[in-house]
C-alpha cells in the first residue's frame, strides 16, 4: 500500500528531522510508530499528507505505485490518504455539516462518484456519526469550535469514516483523551479496519494500542526507524522506555 524509502526531510528553517526513514505497510495492516518527543513522528505524518514547510531532500514515497510526494494535499486525499491531526483545527464561521459535505463531495467527485445531495449526505453523516457517538447537535456547530479534546478526536474519526481512505495516518489521536473518550475513539478506529485499508498509528503511549491492536510496531528515533517488532514491542517500550532500544543497537 505504502512504500517509504530512505526519506530525508528538513524543515524550511533547515534542521534535518527525518534521516533516512524506511517503512513499508501492506494493505489491511495496522502499523504503530512509537518514539520519544522530537523523534520526527509528526513530521512524518505531515510530509505524507503534504503540508507546506518541509523539504524532502532525498528518498521516495510510493502510494499504490504513485509518487505521493509529487501530489498536492487535496490530490492525496482524493487518492485515499487521510491524516487525523493531533490538534484538529477550529474553523469559526463554517458549520461542521457544511465542511463535511464539501469535503465528502470533493473527494467523491475526484474519485468519479456522483456528489451526494443534502438528503443522501445527511443519512451518510448520521450513520458515520453513530460510530463515534457524536450527536447531530455537534454536526451543526462550527468546525471543532467549542469541542472538547475528545469531541475533536471523534470528529476526526468521523471524517475518516466519511472520506473512506485506503491509508489513514492517525497522529497522536490518543493525546489528551480520558479513558472513556479513548475507548470511543478506539472503537471508531476498529470499526473502520478492514482488508482494503491500512493504518499508521502514531502514538507516544502504549494505552491506545491496548484498544487498537497493531500488526507491527516501529520505534522512530533520531529521524529513522530503529526497531521493528510485533505488538509485544509496545509493551516493552512502555515498561522500559526508549533508551534501551538504541543502547542495544
Amino acid at each position, binding site marked *: 500500500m505504502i512504500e517509504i524509502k530512505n526519506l530525508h526531510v528538513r524543515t524550511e528553517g533547515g534542521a534535518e528531522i527525518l534521516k533516512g526513514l524506511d517503512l513499508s505497510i501492506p494493505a489491511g495492516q495496522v502499523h504503530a510508530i512509537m518514539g520519544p518527543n522530537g523523534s520526527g513522528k509528526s513530521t512524518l505524518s505531515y510530509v505524507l499528507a503534504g503540508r*507546506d514547510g518541509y523539504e524532502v531532500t532525498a528518498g521516495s514515497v510510493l502510494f499504490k505505485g504513485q509518487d505521493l510526494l509529487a501530489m*498536492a494535499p487535496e490530490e*492525496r486525499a482524493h487518492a485515499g490518504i*487521510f491524516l487525523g491531526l493531533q490538534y484538529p483545527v477550529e*474553523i469559526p464561521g463554517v458549520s461542521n455539516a457544511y465542511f463535511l459535505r464539501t469535503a465528502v463531495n470533493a473527494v467523491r467527485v475526484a474519485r468519479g462518484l456522483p456528489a451526494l445531495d443534502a438528503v443522501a449526505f445527511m443519512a451518510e453523516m448520521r450513520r458515520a456519526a453513530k460510530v463515534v457517538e457524536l450527536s447531530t447537535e455537534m454536526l451543526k456547530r462550527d468546525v471543532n469550535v467549542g469541542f472538547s479534546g475528545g469531541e475533536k478526536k471523534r470528529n476526526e474519526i468521523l471524517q475518516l469514516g466519511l472520506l473512506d481512505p485506503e491509508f489513514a495516518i492517525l497522529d497522536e489521536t490518543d493525546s489528551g483523551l480520558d479513558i472513556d473518550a479513548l475507548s470511543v475513539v478506539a472503537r471508531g478506529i476498529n470499526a473502520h479496519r478492514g482488508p482494503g485499508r491500512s493504518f499508521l498509528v502514531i502514538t507516544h503511549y502504549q494505552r491506545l494500542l491496548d484498544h487498537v491492536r497493531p500488526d507491527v510496531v516501529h520505534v522512530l528515533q533520531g529521524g529513522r526507524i530503529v526497531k521493528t517488532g510485533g505488538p509485544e514491542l509496545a509493551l516493552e517500550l512502555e515498561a522500559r522506555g526508549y533508551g534501551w532500544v538504541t543502547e542495544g543497537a
Partner: protein
Amino acid sequence: MSDQPWLAALRARAAERFAADGWPDRRTEHWKYTPVAPIERARLAPVDAAAQRAEVQAVRAAVAPEAADFVRDFSDLPPAVQAGIGRVAALEGHAFAARNLLDLHDGLVIHVPRGVRVAAPIVLAWGTPAVGAARPVRVLVLAEAQAEVTVIERFDGDGEGAALTNAVTEIIARDGAQVRYAKAQLERDGAFHVGRVAIEAGRDARVEAHLLNLGGALARTELDVALVAPGADVALKGLFGGRGARHQDQHVTVRHQSPRATSDQDFRGVLAAGARGVFTGLVHVAAGAHHTRATQQNRNLLLDAGAHVDTRPQLEIHNDDVQCSHGATTGRLDATALFYLRSRGLDATTARQLLTLAFAAELTEALPDEALRALALDRLRDAITGG
C-alpha cells in the same frame, strides 16, 4: 417642474457652505487616507432635474406594493416630514453632503407613522449612473415612535466607466422605533461612490445599519450616529474590500450624547491584489452620557501581499462611568486551517474561499435580505478568484 421652495432654500445654504469649504484634499484630516483628486479630474457632469426625477420615480415604482404607501418623492411632503431633510446630516466640513444638496432636485422619503410596523423590506435599487455623470441620491427614513421598518439601498452596476454617486441617507428613529437599514455599494468597476449615512436614535430606539462597501474604484461611506436619548441602541456592521484597483473607505463617528445608550461597531475588510481599505472609527462619549456601553471592532483579512489597509479606531470619552472597548487586527488566512481543509480534499481555491466566507460569516448572516447576502458572498468569492 420647478423645485420646492424648501429645497431651493436648502440648496442656497449648501451653495454657501460649498463655496466656503471647497473640496477636501489630503491635508483635510478626515480625508487623510482617501484622495479626492481622481473624482475632480474625471470632470463629471451633474445629472439634470428631469433625469433625477425620472430615476426617483423608477426606484419608487419598484418598491414592493405592500410597502409603497410609505415611500414618497419630494413633491408633496408635509412640512413636519420635509423638515427632517438635512436635519441630521450636517453640512459643516462635509463638502460632498453640500454638493449633494447643490445638485439635488428630487429624492425619496420613507415615513412610517407612529406604531406602524412595515413588514415587507423597502428596497431602493438605485443602479448605477451613466458614464460621465455625477448623481446625487437623497433618502430620508423617518420612523415615528414605536414604528418598525427595514430599508435596503442598493447601488449596483455591471461593466466599467467613471461616474459618481453622491448618496446621503438620513435615518431618524424616534422613541422606541426599530429600523433595520442596509446599504450595498456594489457599483461597477471604475465608478466613484461617496456616501453619508447619518443616524439619529431617540429614547429606546434600536437601529441596525449594515454597510456592504464592495464595489467601485474609489468608494467612501461616512456613518454618523447620534444617540440622543437614554436607551438608544445602534449596531453598525460593515463589510468592505474586494480585489484589484479598489479603494474602500469607511469613516464612522458615533456620538453618545445621552446616558444609558449602547453602540456596537463590527467592521471587517477582505482585500486582495492591490485593493486598499480604510477604517476610521471614532466613539465620542459626552460628559453627561453616563452608563454608556460602546464597542468598536475592525478586523481585516489581507489575501495577498498586494493588499493594504489603514485602520484607526479611536475612543474619546468625557466621563468615567462607561464601558467601552475597541480594537483592530489585520492578518492573513490561517495556513494550518488551509492545510486542514486541503487534506480533506478541498482544492486550494475552494479552501481559501471557505475560510474567507467564514471570516465574514457573522456579518453576511446578519444581513436583512437574502438577495443581498448572495451578492455579498459572490463578491467575496471573486476576491479570491479574481472572477
